[in-house]
């Protein structure tokens, strides 16, 4: 990959820098520590999910359910914490219990997706379209159509998971960075990543190379579920609530980030750090639109669309020399 650093890899970065310049030009607070922290921290949820999605897509899969899954995991986490509060009391044990539940539920949800896809042999698109409806419905049902809210005292207690940090860097940013670094290493330097790329480029060849195709595919969905769980652990402390509208369209955003970052939708080639750039591009677009009174807010969606396409044009232009 190294020798290609010059070409295709510059594309998404160029788009990102263009956006940063645009933002800085429009508003002097854009580069303020507070704003940078805000943008990075709020990118963390989608970002962690998108890292998992990178593996799923690289190995030729797709997961439309992550947004609903996040809502479901958040709902279960809140439910569990509220239920355990009388016995555990407000404090670290309860927080850990909540985190455990979130990670466990995420893992199980990912496992469910993965098993349906690999064992029953149904298209990922269909399976996860189905579970997308299922997870979201369950949250709405559990919340009785409303919002599941964490008990206020506990909310205060776990708030620092989102708002706190060390050395001025907030936890979501740190967690995101850790996930990205691990993801990049796993993708580039471990068997798992190599197998994902192999399966995505030609699953038959992978099978004929003694790669346990189904197991790897299953693992990608489980890993994604886990990351949805982690993302939720960051999400819940922020507002302390979950409802049917939590995580709405996150799946689209995560997939878009992956693809803007240069991972091929058909699989076979994954770039974790590209995904990070994709996530940041998407977050920045929203941030810039909020910071600048460009036009009617009704047109925000249009501008967002134009920038997404332009970002990718910029990237593909640069990399077309490669013949990809």
């Amino acid at each position, binding site marked *: 990959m190294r020798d290609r650093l010059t070409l295709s890899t510059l594309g998404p970065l160029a788009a990102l820098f263009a956006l940063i310049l645009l933002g800085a030009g429009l508003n002097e607070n854009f580069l303020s520590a507070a704003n940078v922290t805000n943008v990075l921290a709020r990118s963390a949820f989608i970002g962690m999910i998108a890292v998992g999605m990178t593996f799923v897509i690289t190995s030729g899969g797709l997961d439309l359910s992550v947004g609903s899954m996040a809502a479901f995991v958040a709902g279960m986490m809140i439910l569990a914490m509220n239920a355990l509060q009388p016995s555990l009391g407000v404090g670290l044990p309860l927080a850990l219990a909540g985190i455990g539940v979130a990670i466990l539920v995420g893992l199980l949800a990912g496992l469910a997706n993965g098993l349906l896809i690999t064992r029953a042999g149904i298209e990922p698109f269909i399976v996860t379209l189905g579970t997308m409806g299922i997870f979201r419905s369950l949250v709405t049902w559990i*919340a009785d*159509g409303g919002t599941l809210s964490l008990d206020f005292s506990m909310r205060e207690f776990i708030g620092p998971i989102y708002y706190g940090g060390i050395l001025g860097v907030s936890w979501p940013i740190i967690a995101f960075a850790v996930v990205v670094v691990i993801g990049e290493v796993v993708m580039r330097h471990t068997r798992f990543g190599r197998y994902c790329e192999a399966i995505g480029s030609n699953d038959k060849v992978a099978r004929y190379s003694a790669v346990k195709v189904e197991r790897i595919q299953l693992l990608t969905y489980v890993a994604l579920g886990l990351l949805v769980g982690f993302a939720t652990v960051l999400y819940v402390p922020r507002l302390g609530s979950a409802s049917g509208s939590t995580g709405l369209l996150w799946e689209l955003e995560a997939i878009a980030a992956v693809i803007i970052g240069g991972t091929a939708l058909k699989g076979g080639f994954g770039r974790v750090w590209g995904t990070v750039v994709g996530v940041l591009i998407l977050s920045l677009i929203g941030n810039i639109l909020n*910071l600048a009174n460009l036009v009617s807010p*009704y047109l925000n969606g249009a501008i967002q669309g134009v920038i997404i396409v332009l970002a990718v044009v910029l990237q593909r232009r640069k990399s077309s020399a490669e013949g990809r």
Partner: protein
Amino acid sequence: QDKTHVIGVSIPSATHGFMGGLNWHAQDTIARLEATYPQLDFVLATAGEPTKQVADIEDMVATRNIDALVVLPFESEPLTGPVKAVKDAGKFVTVVDRGLSVPGIEDLYVAGDNEAFGRVAGEYFKANLPSGAKIVVLRGIPTTLDNERVDAFEKAIDGSGIEVLDKQHGDWNRDKAFTVMQDYLSKYPKIDAVWAADDDMAIGAMAAIEQAGRKDEMWIVGGAGMKEIIKRIMDGDPQLPVNVTYPPAQISTAIELTALKYVSAAPVTGRFIIGSTLVTPENAAQFYFPDSPF
């Protein structure tokens, strides 16, 4: 009264707090009425978009033989024709909250007052902020009713010298409101008050303000009377001085009134507008429903 009457109820699905509350009240009322009146049957359908809602109504007429329809239109315009078709088929029609675009179709109209919702909030701002004060607005999903509320709000503060710095869409969503508020806070060094046209958004905005450490700088007015917010007003939270009601329970009124037509001799037709009132620490207790999910 031995014949069973079927009442169809068609409402938007619970995609945000207010609609969640409305869904809860609808189900609660139906369960209650079904228990009380064995001769009444209810059919409840929820829809995430207008086309689905039209399909729901068609299905009620074609397969469930409804005698009456209680409908909260997802949007007025697209539902006007289909609801008129129901009316033309001789059914009793109750319209809730969002009026149809052609007057005179419905037998019964029960609604909140969007215009008042914006106006009451605006009047509070006008009365409680000095000229030159700066405020930001969080709007809902772009819809006619959002437009009505915002227009009424702006008209109410007109001439007060209050400056509206920005009004972006928070889509009646906590997360979106949190993000937008964060960005407002980055952008404007001085904000005196926030009008979040919905309590879900107020909650998101509050979290962003708290994080930025500017809690003492501004207060927030939300809307629709979410129980957590009402509770805090009762407790005298300086950040949340007041709220404006827009009761989700209006659906209960509508269903009950419609049911009344079949279980009593009382004539039920007309318009019931449930006004928006200002909730203050003094009167908050009467708007507090701890059992509602909203």
